[in-house]
């Protein structure tokens, strides 16, 4: 097994320039590069309309795009979403706040806990409910595990879209270790429904600490191996470097958040900027890259896996004692084991199941950093146990919208790479 540095040298020998370390192009330079890669669209010719998806193998989920093609150049794109629309917002209006939690992890089913977490943060803001420290730490651990699982899956799918099958299996194998941990913690592999208003559903199980440490010691080594395989691979380099440039200005205009924004040189991360859970008590760096292309989005996600491992390790080291669910009669459910033994817990259970937690009149918006970007929840309450209006502002909705602005003028083969690089999940997009 050779050293990664050799690969850099070898890539350079074979003609591709070695990635410049620490080079930071300015916004003007990025714009000029973007314009250069897209000036080909001016060519006039016969335009052919092709439907890409919803069953195209490199379209994610049921996303469909109508492409107008001039040869292999994309002239216009008309995205069609909605094939997976389940009316979650309408359903939420007919349910109590506790009952909405299982709907939320069906939004982005790749990182279900992050969605539970975002909704609970919003409800806690509305009700001014407090989360005990242990609950906040367990939430942080579960959120970061979801982030790792999401990014590893993303990497496998992204590379598969570019034409490799084997690497997908490698990623799936490693994701399985993380899903096993999540299963041990929450009881489910994908749809966790683990967060509760005022904390989480269960404490860390016995032996979790040991297994989790093993996995997070092991994963950074795996990430190094992914980078050894992918980062200096000439085929990947040529298909990803300088492709799909999307500057920070464009990101603001189109509400592109998360790794695509951070790859454009913006150190924007809600975990730092508007800290929630235990993120203000742990140390980590925001992953930033500067070239705003597909390649840098890959680099950002690999950095984020490493940072997530760091966060989880600190959370396990400093895990406080105490309750993981707030002993809060008004807002939180009681512990299940107490319900049949303790009369007050039984009353609390009755109140929450049949009447639901009472929210004050008002409206809140709370955003958190989910693996795909910034996910916000808007709740308008008229008092009582059910919200009057809920809106899930999910990142994939906007990332699905931005595809025309990203790919018009590029080659059709690049569309596959670009679309995969922004990480759209259609459950998240269609709600």
């Amino acid at each position, binding site marked *: 097994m050779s050293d990664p540095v050799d690969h850099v040298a070898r890539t350079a020998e074979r003609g591709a320039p070695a990635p410049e370390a620490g080079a930071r192009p300015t916004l003007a330079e990025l714009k000029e590069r973007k314009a250069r890669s897209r000036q080909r669209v001016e060519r006039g010719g016969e335009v052919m309309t092709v439907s890409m998806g919803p069953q195209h193998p490199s379209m994610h989920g049921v996303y469909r795009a109508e492409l107008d093609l001039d040869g292999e150049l994309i002239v216009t794109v008309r995205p069609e979403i909605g094939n997976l629309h389940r*009316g979650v917002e309408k359903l939420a*209006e007919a349910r109590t706040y506790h009952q909405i939690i299982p709907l939320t992890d069906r939004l982005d089913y790749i990182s279900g806990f992050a969605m539970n977490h975002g909704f609970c943060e919003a409800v806690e803001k509305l009700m001014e409910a407090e989360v005990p420290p242990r609950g906040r730490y367990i939430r942080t651990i579960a959120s970061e595990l979801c982030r790792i699982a999401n990014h590893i899956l993303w990497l496998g799918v992204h590379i598969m879209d570019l034409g490799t099958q084997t690497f997908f299996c490698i990623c799936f194998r490693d994701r399985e270790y993380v899903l096993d941990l999540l299963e041990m913690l929450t009881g489910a592999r994908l749809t966790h429904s683990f967060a509760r208003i005022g904390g989480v559903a269960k404490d860390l199980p016995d032996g979790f600490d040991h297994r989790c440490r093993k996995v997070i010691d092991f994963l950074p080594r795996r990430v190094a191996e992914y980078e050894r395989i992918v980062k200096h691979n000439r085929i990947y380099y040529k298909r990803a470097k300088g492709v799909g440039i999307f500057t920070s200005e464009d990101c603001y205009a189109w*509400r592109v958040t998360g790794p695509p924004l951070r790859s454009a040189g*913006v150190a924007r991360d809600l975990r730092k900027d*508007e800290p929630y859970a235990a993120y203000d008590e742990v140390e980590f760096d925001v992953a930033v890259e500067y070239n705003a292309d597909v390649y840098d989005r890959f680099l950002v996600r690999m950095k984020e896996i490493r940072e997530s491992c760091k966060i989880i390790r600190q959370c396990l080291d400093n895990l406080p004692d105490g309750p993981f669910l707030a002993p809060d009669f008004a807002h939180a459910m009681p512990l299940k084991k107490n319900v049949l033994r303790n009369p007050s817990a039984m009353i609390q259970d009755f109140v929450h199941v049949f009447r639901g937690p009472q929210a004050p009149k008002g409206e*809140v*918006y709370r955003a958190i950093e989910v693996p795909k970007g910034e996910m916000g929840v808007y709740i308008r309450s008229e008092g009582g146990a059910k919200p009057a209006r809920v809106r899930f502002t999910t990142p994939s909705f906007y990332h699905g919208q*931005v595809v025309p602005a990203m790919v018009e003028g590029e080659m059709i083969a690049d569309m596959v790479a670009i679309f995969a690089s922004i990480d759209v999940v259609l459950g998240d997009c269609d709600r």
Partner: protein
Amino acid sequence: MKVWSTPPTLEAAAAALERRFGDRVLERLEFRGELTCVVAPADWVELLCFCKDAPELAFDQLECLLGDHLPERVATPFEVVAHLLSHAHGHRLRVKTSLAEGQALETITGLWPSAGFDERETWEMFGVVFAGHPDLRRLLTTDDFEGFPLRKDFPLQGTVGGRIRTDLRGRI
């Protein structure tokens, strides 16, 4: 207990809005450290344009735009709510306007192109028309869908397709 308070930059932004628009900001609400401004539909685009361009506000990102239905308000049952975010200052603002049935609102896709899908969704879910929107079609539901599903008078089970046969319960 976490205390939600309005950030000082947002106070300055609200003061700037007050100076520029005065009484045209119909209502100013604060709840959990969030500021909400209510404006008339006629001032919608002008106010959002000011929010984007004025240096004290500098709202460079439209976080989301959504519709709402309040049937108890008979004259103006519909609401359109925009959430703005400033990367420069790190503050957020909510701007609202109330509309009557069938009343059109001017589009803001010229200010933030990300409003395109949001406005399409608001139209298909509530029937609020956005004048000047480049492509106002149904987005999440099928093209032949009838009705506006997120209105409060729209039944939860829907108006088309199969229904749950509660009359057969216990017999099969």
